[in-house]
């Protein structure tokens, strides 16, 4: 074997060995890359964050309340622009189509790639429309065609380096409907108020980071961005719309500053409607200038006589009074240094607890609280979670603390005032949650706005939460019966609903300002639930500072009646006799 043959053989063998080694190495590298490549690349220069499509929001029956719309981020690939030297052409075309300032676009387009801390990509326009992008595409094709046909033209006469990436922004197809519940998400992805803010993490999903490559069409579909979770709310769109119409008209007709109307299923805590006036249009959120976005949860006030239901329920539960306990109203009752009077400053003579509620007598309720005892009274209020957050799943809930004998600010005089709902601050949602114990056999349920959420093909329902059982089932039934009997009295004539037995109570509250109560300005409220023997709804209405009249029995009672008349139709609740007959027939 000669030397030449040996060396040729050695060379060939070495070549094959090296090739085999390289192929093997490459194979091993590809197969084991999961060991050294992170699943989600970190945000680094040269990476662009791609936000997932925001999850949708539906009402309980699947009507879309918050949807998405596709817009385009038009960007500049600085690597390609620097190579083509076409910043001027790009600035001229983009400023024309996107109605931007030429100098601004030119400055961005002529940025040196990798400068400014490693920037390779600049955004020319964040929210371009589909039509604008179509125009850009047409121009790009035209320029490319011209450049290929005319050899004298170089790359500086092309639009190489313009990229666009579709993305979605929030739109609200129902405009202002339920806007106080939904909140809003800005085109920049900042969620404010309501469900949008509270569930922002779930709705927005997990962003991914995409590398800016050195080729055109950088954002092609080589990455997967799963959408955020979608939410199904407890809200019924039809009931919400009907309640908004009622409260809007009520605020206008009565010259009130604001109005709240909440409808909840007292058994599950499902909020069927939470209507407030005024409301924002989340599609034009910048125009909304009110202090309160959702006064049902973010505005505390002294509720007045609607609060008496808790004082009476507590006393009944503690065994201090019964519906027939007699009381002689002499027109005044003194606790500490304060003598409490009735709303009309009159003495009402012999009363029972039922007529005390019917006539809304402060003197009687101050006596009831006194009989109950200070510690007992405040322990019950704590059990009703007065002064504590309801933890409703909406952003922006406020809480005003309840002063009890353990607090330095508390005085014995507060016992009387608190018994009829003065000197105690609540939000409508706190009142609704506390009252659910009375309407739901003693079980106080947490109000909830999200019924279920859906993510990645799985729908998960939220659960009903019983927060506490402040009173017994028997006491709850007794107070419900008392309030339904008192609703049949003369005071409530404007609120009586034919065919339905409803438990209810009005509340007219004075408004404190600078340490004293204002004259001739009140907060008027109404709380009620029904049908009394099997409550399906709990309604709370509040009008702030109505100018038509100061008394809730005149201002809010007709609104309550209209509300119930609409609700029984929308919720398919038959009149009591029809319902009982239907049930009786079923049992047969």
């Amino acid at each position, binding site marked *: 074997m000669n030397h030449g043959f040996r060396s040729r053989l050695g060379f060939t063998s070495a070549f094959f060995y090296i090739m085999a080694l390289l*192929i093997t190495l490459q*194979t091993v590298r590809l197969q084991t890359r999961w060991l050294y490549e992170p699943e989600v690349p970190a945000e680094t220069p040269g990476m662009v964050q791609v936000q997932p499509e925001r999850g949708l929001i539906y009402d309980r029956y699947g009507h*879309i309340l918050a949807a998405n719309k596709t817009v385009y981020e038009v960007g500049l690939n600085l690597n390609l622009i620097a190579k083509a030297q076409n910043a001027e052409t790009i600035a001229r075309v983009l400023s024309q189509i996107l109605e931007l300032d030429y100098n601004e676009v030119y400055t961005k387009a002529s940025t040196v790639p990798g400068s400014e801390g490693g920037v390779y990509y600049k955004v020319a326009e964040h929210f371009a429309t589909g039509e604008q992008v179509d125009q850009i595409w047409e121009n790009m094709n035209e320029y490319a065609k011209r450049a290929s046909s005319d050899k004298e033209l170089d790359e500086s006469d092309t639009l190489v380096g313009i990229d666009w990436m*579709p993305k979605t922004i929030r739109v609200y*197809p129902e405009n202002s409907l339920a806007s106080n519940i939904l909140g809003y998400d800005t085109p920049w992805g900042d969620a404010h108020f309501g469900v949008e803010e509270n569930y922002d993490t779930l709705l927005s999903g997990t962003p991914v980071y995409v590398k800016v490559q050195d080729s055109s069409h950088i954002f092609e579909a*080589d990455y997967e961005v799963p959408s955020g979770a979608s939410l*199904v709310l407890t809200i019924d769109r039809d009931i919400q719309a009907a309640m908004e119409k009622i409260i809007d008209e009520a605020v206008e007709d009565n010259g009130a500053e604001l109005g709240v109307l909440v409808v909840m299923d007292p058994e599950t805590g499902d909020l069927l409607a939470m209507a407030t006036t005024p409301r924002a249009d989340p599609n034009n959120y910048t125009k909304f200038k009110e202090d309160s976005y959702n006064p049902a949860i973010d505005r505390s006030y002294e509720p007045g006589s609607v609060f008496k239901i808790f004082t009476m329920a507590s006393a009944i539960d503690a065994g201090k009074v019964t519906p027939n306990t007699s009381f002689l109203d002499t027109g005044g009752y003194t606790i500490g240094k304060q003598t409490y009077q009735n709303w009309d400053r009159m003495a009402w003579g012999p009363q029972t607890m039922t007529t005390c509620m019917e006539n809304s007598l402060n003197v009687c309720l101050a006596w009831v609280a006194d009989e109950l005892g200070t510690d007992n009274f405040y322990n019950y209020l704590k059990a009703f979670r007065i002064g504590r957050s309801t933890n409703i799943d909406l952003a922006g809930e406020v809480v005003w603390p309840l002063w009890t004998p353990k607090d330095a600010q508390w005085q014995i005089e507060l016992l009387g005032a608190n018994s009829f709902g003065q000197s105690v601050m609540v939000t409508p949602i706190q009142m609704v949650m506390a009252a659910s114990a009375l309407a739901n056999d003693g079980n106080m349920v947490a109000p909830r706005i999200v019924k279920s959420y859906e993510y990645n093909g799985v729908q998960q329902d939220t659960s009903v939460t019983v927060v506490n059982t402040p009173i017994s089932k028997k006491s709850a039934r007794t107070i419900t019966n008392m309030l339904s009997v008192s609703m049949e009295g003369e005071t409530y004539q404007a609120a009586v609903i034919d*065919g339905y037995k409803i438990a209810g109570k009005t509340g007219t509250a004075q408004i404190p300002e600078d340490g004293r109560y204002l004259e001739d300005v009140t907060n008027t409220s109404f709380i009620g639930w029904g049908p009394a023997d099997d409550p399906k709804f709990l309604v709370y209405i509040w009008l702030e500072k109505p100018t038509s009249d100061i008394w809730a029995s005149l201002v809010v009672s007709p609104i309550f009646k209209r509300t119930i008349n609409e609700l029984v139709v929308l919720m*398919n609740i038959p009149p009591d006799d029809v319902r009982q007959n239907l049930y009786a027939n079923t049992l047969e």
Partner: protein
Amino acid sequence: MTQKIVQAYQQAPWRIRVQRIAAVLLVVVLIGITSGVYLYISSQSAEAGLMIWEYEKEIKSSKSRITELQTELAELTSYSRMEAKAQEMGFHRIAKGEAKFILVPGFYGREIARLSEGNPMRSGEQIVIRPAYTQSLSEWLYQKYTEVLNEDQIMVEGARE
């Protein structure tokens, strides 16, 4: 003497060289064949991957279109529009006294919206992409190893019975 016997039975040097070269070439050829097969499979995988990529692109574009249409539909069926249309058609909201109630056996009222079946295994991606295109060589080997192991166990258990 011993050296002479060894030398007597020793292969000719050129034969040894040829044998060594043949062995080396055999290894090289085997590596070449393995690499060829692997490259062939890789190219097929790449082709399939490209198709998947195209389909994913289509899915993405369809999803975007669905989003647009959903929004359009939501706007067209919004409460205010539906109410206006109903009124135009001569409908009006039923008043309390106008309703007649009857018991319908088996009807428990309107159902709460279900957005999905709730089974993640039904996700389209998992049905379309076969494991051969997503698992690594080591995963495949482990899978085969456990399959063989399980078969052995089944056979042993069968023999015990």
